[in-house]
């Protein structure tokens, strides 16, 4: 299997090729790629994909990843059933 077919985002089945294609089209931050492709919006909350997307962006722009902005880490830390939250105070 070529490297390009490597799955980057397991929640949305996005490959390295997909991500590189989006970068080529001009989406130039983790936030922009997340919003247009849902990469990082799945149940894993970006744990697998967002670092890879960031390093791909850094490579494409010839920058260090420390110079680029990561997308916001949002709650909850791990997916929680709504029913559990509903009963929270019992």
């Amino acid at each position, binding site marked *: 299997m070529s490297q390009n077919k490597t799955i980057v985002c397991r929640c949305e089945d996005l490959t390295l090729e997909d991500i590189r294609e989006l970068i080529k089209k001009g989406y*130039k*931050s983790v*936030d*922009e790629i997340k*919003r*247009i492709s*849902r990469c990082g*919006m*799945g*149940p894993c*909350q970006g744990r697998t994909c967002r670092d890879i997307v960031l390093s791909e962006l850094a490579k494409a722009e010839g920058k260090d990843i420390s110079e680029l902005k990561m997308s*916001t880490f*949002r*709650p*909850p830390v791990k*997916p*929680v*059933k*709504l*029913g559990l*939250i*509903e009963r*929270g105070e019992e």
Partner: protein
Amino acid sequence: MKKTAEIVIIGGGVSGLATAYFLAKMGMKDIVVLEKGYIASGSTGRCGAGIRQQWGTEMNCRMAINACDFYEKGNEILEYDDDIEFKQGGYLIIATTEKEHEQFKKNVALQQSLGIPVKHLTPQEALEVVPFLNISDVLSATYCKKDGHLNPFKVCDAFAKACRKLGVEINTYTKVEDIVVENGRIKEVVTDKGNIATNKVMNAAGGYSQVIAKMVGIDLPVYSERHNILVTEPVEPFLGPMVMAFQKNLYIQQVPHGSVIMGKGDPNEPRDFTIKSSWHFLDEMARIACDTLPPLRGLRMVRQWAGLYNMSPDCQPVLGSVDEVEGFYMAIGFSGHGFMMGPTTGMVIAEHILGQESELTKLLIGMLHLSRFEKGELILEPSVV
């Protein structure tokens, strides 16, 4: 970045991009859009993205009908290479108080007179639309099958691509720092990437509209307020329509992708620019959502976020030119309804600026002028969340 422009539009959300699109389509050249983040990074990209034609005033019904007609053909009109994901699963709006129930009778009569395919349902009939709806406190419901929701990022992506094809210059990550006014006329826009000489500026800055207006010396009677949203893991389609309740102050919808998105307002929100997520919201939202649609108990929520409503004194937008500064236009203060009205906003502002006003544009510009607040001509819309 261009040094001069016919118009500078501030805000790369749906209002600004739709206006740029219609202006370009109608023949205006040298249009520049400035966005301090990326496309749809503000209120548009954070919204619930529903569109309903079920309003309580003729004006809002007509704005929404026009926008809905546009979105139905959006992919074709904008020649989009992707999909704006318009799902017309309808809106089911439930009444849980006698007052709402009475208001819904009036709303339905008005909506039907305007050609909106809406029905007033008994609780039993509402169950036929959403079989697992908890009807224990439902007095009646209204249902319009042509209402629905879209993907706000894709909508803005579609407008942005269409704009660029028509020659519009869109500058993202460009922040407006000042607007120079001379003798009551717009002269120049100052940004962190350089200056643009122009005679026209449009304020489409969403949650930051009052900050932009201050740059030309206008003190807007609006404020911004955080509204939280949460989304669940994607599951098989089970919920057709958007379920909404004014009294309970909530909306719940399942997007075509499978996840369920829900939000609710909070009367105790501070009036500022905070968009951090709140635990309080999650707690209340989970309780009210599970009570309204019990199967939601089994769904995992994966993320919550928030965005700003730009609230006006009557919860209606401010559209058009202003008396104070020549060349300054606004489409602000949508109070949570800016996304659904987007295409209408774009059309109305473009026609107004170019002096080619249709009947709908004349009506809206006439009613939604900024001066209505001073004159005390507030527009009271009974059906808002």
